[in-house]
């Protein structure tokens, strides 16, 4: 059932021949004590470039785990995860880091900005990691522009403690997008924001992704936000199904 739903859901009519994201028959099992706990069951998913996909589902259903597989932060117990032509299943730690530099941007629910660095340097850090040859001055210049693009041109020198939640998430968004990733993963990006602020942040995220032709996969509990995605996938007890629209 899960396999059929996953396959059929992910492989709908709109899917191009060479998807950006391709997950095939992925299982993910954790060991809790000595007992195995299956988190994901036979998940398959294809996402095209520049496509926006929302994943919804109850807590504990496996949404975040799927996001971690897509980010190369965890490995599937079985099955395959291919992103932008790279099979993440067997990459080494350093190769995974290189993959994330080139391909991935991540937005977190809790923002996770570095409190000792200014907004500008939080963004610069990501750029400087992605492009190690870049001078700090140049990285800061581009970071200031990225912050201006998310409406924080006047807050570049402020540290996270001086920013509101919405502003912090916008810095997080600028950080995730600064290296022009092909895929943006977002784990409940509005979970810590009020509804209006959350809506504005999501709007901004979609705009940036569209401008950069990046695919977006985001987890949310908000049906309203999910409805704005190109596709909505539902995770239930580790199984993925696609809502037909």
């Amino acid at each position, binding site marked *: 059932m899960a396999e059929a739903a996953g396959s059929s859901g992910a492989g709908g009519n709109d899917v191009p021949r060479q998807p950006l994201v391709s997950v095939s028959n992925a299982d993910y099992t954790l060991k809790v004590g000595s007992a195995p706990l299956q988190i994901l069951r036979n998940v398959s998913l294809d996402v095209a470039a520049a496509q926006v996909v929302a994943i919804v589902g109850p807590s504990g259903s496996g949404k975040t785990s799927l*996001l971690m597989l897509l980010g190369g932060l965890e490995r599937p117990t079985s099955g395959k995860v291919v992103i932008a032509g790279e099979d993440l299943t067997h990459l080494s730690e350093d190769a995974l880091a290189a993959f994330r530099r080139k391909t991935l941007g991540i937005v977190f629910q809790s923002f996770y900005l570095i409190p000792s660095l200014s907004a500008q340097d939080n963004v610069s850090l990501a750029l400087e990691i*992605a492009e190690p040859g870049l001078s700090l001055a140049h990285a800061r210049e581009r970071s200031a522009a990225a912050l201006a693009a998310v409406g924080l041109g006047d807050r570049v020198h402020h540290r996270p403690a001086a920013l509101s939640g919405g502003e912090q998430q916008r810095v997080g968004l600028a950080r995730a997008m600064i290296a022009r990733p092909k895929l943006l993963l977002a784990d409940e990006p509005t979970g810590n924001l009020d509804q209006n602020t959350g809506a504005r942040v999501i709007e901004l995220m979609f705009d940036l992704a569209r401008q950069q032709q990046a695919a977006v996969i985001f987890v949310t509990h908000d049906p309203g936000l999910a409805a704005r995605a190109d596709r909505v996938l539902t995770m239930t007890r580790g199984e993925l199904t696609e809502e037909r629209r």
Partner: protein
Amino acid sequence: MMQGAWAAITLGLLDMRGDIRRFGLLVVCLAVGTALIAGVSSVGASIRQAVDRDAAVIVGGDVELSRADRPATPDELAIIAGFGQLAAVIDTNVRAQSETNDAFVDLVAVGEGYPLVGQVVAEGLPADVEPFAFLNPHDGSFGALVDPLLLDKLGARIGDTIQLAGTPFEARGTLRKLPDGAVRGFRLGLPALISTAGFASLSDTTSPLPGLGTYYRYKVLTENHDADQLRADLGAALGDTGWTIRTPRDALGAMVRYYDLFMRFLVIVGLASLLVGGVSVWTVVSSYISERSTVIAVMRSVGASRARIFLHFFAQVAALALIGVGIGLIVGAGTGLLALPIVGQAIGVALPPALYLQPLAIAGAVGLVTAFAFSYLPLQQALNIQPVILFRSRGLAAPAFAWRGLVTSVQVIPVIVAVLAFLWLALLMTGDPTLVGAFAIMSVVAVLVLRVATAVAVGALRRLPESANPIIRRGLRGISGSDSNAASVVISIGMALAMLIVVLALQTNLSNEYLGASAFDVPTFVASDLFSDEAARLRELQAEGSDITDFTATPMLRGAVTAVNGIPVGALKPRGSEALFLLSGDIPMTYRAELPKASRLVEGDWWAADYSGPPLVSLHQSLRAGLGVGIGDELTFDIFGDTITATVANFRDYSWQGGIDFLVGFSPGVLEGYPATLLGAVKAAPGREEAVERSLAAELPLVRFVAIGETLDQITKALGQLSLAATAVGGLAVGNGLLVLIGSLATGRQQRRADALITKVLGAAQIEIITAIALQYLLLALFAAILATALGVAAAWALTMALLDVDFTVNGWVLAIVTVGAVAIVAALGATTILGAFRTAPARLLREL
């Protein structure tokens, strides 16, 4: 690429801003250790250079031959003279008298040619005239150059006639400085210089006090100044005839023995400070990395490689290490500059203030290597942090350290290289492989003992049934729980405390060596050959409530050692001044039922007060090596024509008296039948010395009292300064150790605060939470203290025995106070680290978790 690296370093340093205060401890620990090593090495280098530069001046020639029993024979003189220029010097102690006063004199008699190098500084002595010629007889009396204080004491002036050992001498000038004064060490009495011809005319050269002999010294100066070769050649030419031959290095070694001990003490303290400073680096960096795991995960999530993470945090540690080591070098070099002239003055060698780059470079390198070695592994821990924790909180602590993986991978190579570099630098610094080896072994053993013992104790605690009391239960769970930081806390507290104990024990032993057990009980006056009625009168004076606060009388009679273990003294090869004096003929001896208060037993047992068995003797400890005898060996004496053979029962030390005691003391029942006089020691009330002197002169006009208190006080003062310096440095190290203790509390601080906060939100009373944490740290500190005391005392004993060559004692009270104090501090501060959790609104802190 360089630009990228520079950007990484810049961002790493910027990232440190919010946490800069927490690193104060790390910087201070590195600075203190580096400063100690830099200062000590600078002074050591200065002394070495001074020896090389002024070698001949220091010893008065390329080598010095000496013995106490007799002067050189004409044949020996001929042999010695064949090697180069020769000058004779005789050292002894005599009484000086004027018409009104008397004084105790450190008499130096010099022969033709003296000084071979350098200048005698004396007012009245023309620059182009040798002292020997200047002091030749005029108008029937020899001349003397005397210390200005001696003139004052005798109430005499230049040109007056004074009596030295009963012979009249004309005071021809005031003696300011002997060129080879430094190698004479501490001397009793005020100096006076006469010629050897004048010495031959002395009517009474009997030592005025037991324990003080006459030393015949011969200085030899060659053209090529190869002292070591000359010593070897002279030794071969003279054969095994009992001469002690010293090069400048040997002589200086003897002179600066106390300073050498002090230096060794400082080096040990410096190395220990750096080691515990390293522990502090470990705990601070570990807890920092642990608390920064979110930042690391964020960096990993945006694709930072392991190398990039390492560079980010390594830049921070390197900057802090550079600051700490830089401060240490500045303080160490500055202290060295200030200390050099003072140390030089104290040991009689010119030590001009200068910067010594090599020791400073070594000290800086040792500091940096320490910082690297102790931060490398926690930094490796950072590399294991995965971005997945941003999605799923796995607590605030960094993942457990994968020791097995590390020690079997190439990652361990930098640590091995750093440890080897540390040992190599320590060896360069100390030149003492035994010290470095002992230090390394003891450090490793200490860490292993602390680690294994903690694992065993935590395992045992887990098996115990849980306490019914919730506070005790929570406190114990904090130690035995799966996220327990018990091992790192016990290791850092244990290492710091063990270092404190080593430093305190060494400092106590060093002070004992310097000052003796009864340093402040030195007699003001001593008189030999008292008769019993005179001693009785002195006791009456003390009983009458005069200014005499103490009087002791010891039987004194003269005899000669004729054989050791049946071997006649002529066939023996004594070493050292005491052994030579012992075999030099009739010497003063005593008998005693009880061990004198001021003596310390070094080996063997003292006899019972009512002992009546075969004759036993107690010998000065220097005779163990000097005569090569041990407990149970036999010495044969000639006393008033009788032959008495006695067994060595024990060895004792009486350093506090500056040598004024008897080398040989018999057990009761052996010498009582022989005619004896008494050695009396009088202690005057403070500030009443002159009044006592006058009253003694009036009451017992026939007895010559020697005022040794002043001289001994001078020695005591000089050594007291060293002891004070040792205490100050020890105190510094103790302060450093306490900082490390405080630093150890940083481990898991954030987790503790989080736990405390959640417990509070769940409804626990603040006092219960604090009590549970205090209990947790009290138990950990107590456990660490018990292990550290055993480790520290064992290490101090080993270092004392192997390196300082002094007797070992432990001041239990000081140890107890420091240990209890440290435990209390850890428990109290452990509890206060969570106070922040109560001061801030819970909502804010919860958001930060």
